[in-house]
């Protein structure tokens, strides 16, 4: 079981949380200029990283806040926890989704790239 540190409530057991998938996904826009491919990319395509991942969690049985977790999906090591409005505090983080650029499915994934 993961022990996640909610940015509001402190360390809590994993059963209090719901996983919200990959974080830092930007909605493409303005809407009239978004192609079907971009929209499908935004809706459905995720990186499914093996390694350092930025993901969303909801403290459902607690303060009911969404927040971000940087977690290694291989080791389950939690590298950072930060609020939705904050940038990732990891020193080498550029604000962009991390991982192998070739795995980024498309331009709709946001980030600095």
């Amino acid at each position, binding site marked *: 079981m993961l022990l996640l540190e909610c940015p509001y409530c*402190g360390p809590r*057991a994993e*059963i209090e949380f719901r996983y919200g998938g990959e974080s830092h996904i930007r909605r493409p826009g303005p809407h009239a200029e978004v192609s079907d491919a971009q929209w499908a990319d935004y809706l459905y395509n995720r990186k499914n990283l093996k390694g350092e991942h930025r993901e969303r969690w909801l403290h459902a049985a607690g303060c*009911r806040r969404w927040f971000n977790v940087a977690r290694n999906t291989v080791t389950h090591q939690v590298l950072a926890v930060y609020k939705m409005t904050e940038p990732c505090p990891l020193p080498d983080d550029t604000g962009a989704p991390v991982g192998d650029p070739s795995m980024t499915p498309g331009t709709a994934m946001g980030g600095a790239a």
Partner: protein
Amino acid sequence: MFDPDVTSPLDDGSPAITPVGPVSRAIIRCRASDIDLVSNRIDIALPRAACRSVQDSGLSALWLGPDEWLILNATPADSWVSELSARLDGALCSLVDVSHRQVALSVHGPRAEDILATGCALDHSIAAFPVGMCTRTMFAKAEIVLWRTGAANFHLEVWRSFARYVEALLREAESER
């Protein structure tokens, strides 16, 4: 609205676990910028610190989230929430009467921490969970609000339909020596 004729689903008390009598309850939600205004209108200072509570003249305000508080009124009254609503007129907030959504149990005595630890993964020691601390959490598979009202006193709020489940698990834990 509060109806005194609604019966409790809970059994009578055992040495360490006692049903708490009727309580009026309300949930208030508002933005951080409106906390002062709302606090003034309802005559109790909503706590801003995470997982902390405030008690003032029969009312208790429990922090549940940065924008959510549970208000308990130990002297239940049918008109209480409508009075609050009238006082909050014009304030940007949400007020919901949840008097009958949940029921309360008191877990008390020297074994209270151990009994709660059988179903809740939190550290219940007085250092980690001091008097006045409150939080929404899980007890086994049910969501509860746990509030420490004294060194050996916990107030546990659970939704009505989960009450017997939580109560049975607590009583089972109490029976184990």
